[in-house]
């Protein structure tokens, strides 16, 4: 089981959280300008990294806020936690 450090509530166990998938997927600024390939890329294509993966979690059974985590998808080690809008910390750049 993962022990996840919520930036607002501190360390809590995995069951209090919801998983939001890959982080930093930016909603297209001008949706009308997108062709089908760009839509497909935005909606469906994923990095699915083996190693340091940046992802979103929500503290559903706590403060109910979203935040970002860098987690190693092989060891499950949590390398960093940072707030939405912040740049990923250096630890999260491993494996880029």
């Amino acid at each position, binding site marked *: 089981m993962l022990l996840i450090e919520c930036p607002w509530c501190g360390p809590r166990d995995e069951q209090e959280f919801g998983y939001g998938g890959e982080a930093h997927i930016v909603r297209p600024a001008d949706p009308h300008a997108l062709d*089908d390939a760009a*839509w497909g890329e935005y909606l469906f294509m*994923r990095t699915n990294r083996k190693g340091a993966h940046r992802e979103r979690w929500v503290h559903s059974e706590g403060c109910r806020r979203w935040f970002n985590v860098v987690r190693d*998808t092989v060891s499950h080690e949590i390398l960093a936690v940072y707030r939405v809008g912040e740049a990923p910390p250096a630890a999260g750049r491993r494996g880029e």
Partner: protein
Amino acid sequence: MARYSIFSLLRNAARYHRDWPAAWRSPDPRAAYDVVVVGGGGHGLATAYYLAKEHGITNVAVLEKGWLGGGNTGRNTTIIRSNYLWDESAHLYEHSLRLYEGLSQELNYNIMLSQRGVMNLAHNLHDLRELSRRVNANRLNGIDSEILTPEQIKAMVPILDVSPGARYPVLGASLQRRGGVARHDAVAWGFARGADARGVDIIQNCEVTGIRVSDGRVEGVETSRGYIRAGKVAVVVAGHASVLAEMAGFRLPVESHPLQALVSEPVKPIHPNVVMSNAVHVYVSQSDKGELVIGAGIDAYTSYAQRGSLPVVEHQMGALLELFPVFSRLRMLRQWGGIVDVCPDASPIIGKTPVRNLYFNCGWGTGGFKATPGSGWVFAHTVARDEPHALNAAFSLERFTTGALVDEHGAAAVAH
């Protein structure tokens, strides 16, 4: 290939089983092949087998980073059925089930196919309507499928709690009588032996670490045992599909998640068929050894670790006991996880890629064991002819651009 029969069994028994020949060779990799198949799971081995058998392409290597069937093939709960909703999927999975029905004879290898019936439970009115819709769609596609009442369910599986006060009331079920289970290792080994007999080189402990592409065309693969040139490269690596795609410079709509299963201590025959409940994420059958084989839902987060987390197991055991109170004192012997390649529409990707002569077969997620022979059969066709067969044309990577998804969440759900 030494044929297996009652006579070879007797002959070898008389020699205390010391002289059985190896089921396949273990050659060193050659410098070049017409086709290199990456991934020695059931799908990769079936691909190599049908390349040789159906298309006469025998200068083929299967490269496996670990041991044959050590991925999801050897970790799954072995449920086989073809009751998918849409025509495209129904045809593909039914093709596979038909191949399964003749596979032990064809391969001269007992895959222990047991068509004991697969039941999908409905716990509310919506479930029941969905199941009825699917049963009707199946019948239009010529796939055996029927709806059972709670009384009929109780008569078939007396240990299932169908009382009105149950935590998960059972309002009905669909049943595919031709569905069932098979021995997963045997499927991999049978295809391996059949492919080897036709000249395919099966190379274990050989990890592909890079894919060489020049001018948009694949040239070969870097491996832990050196560079291997290849006319065509067919990648069938399940949970590692995204990793291989990255080597070739493109991305896939796939995410890798742990999926767990458990077996209990063995008990006398008590559970006659396969019972699945999509709503509570439990599916259970009883093996020939007497163990209950129980599958769970996927872990929410992505992972490559081949293990899942305990909350998922706890949830699954809770649901199991609500459905089968009789199992309450049964002890679980083993628990494990595999890494499944989940696609947004719960359907596989089988076809060409942005790189010429490079083909991918992935996205089977939580339910590809049932498709093993059919997947290999259509993929071999795709690789040999450089174009998909009618059965897998809809399962292209382009569907994520055109939007022509094949949404099978209802039939695949998390269960199988």
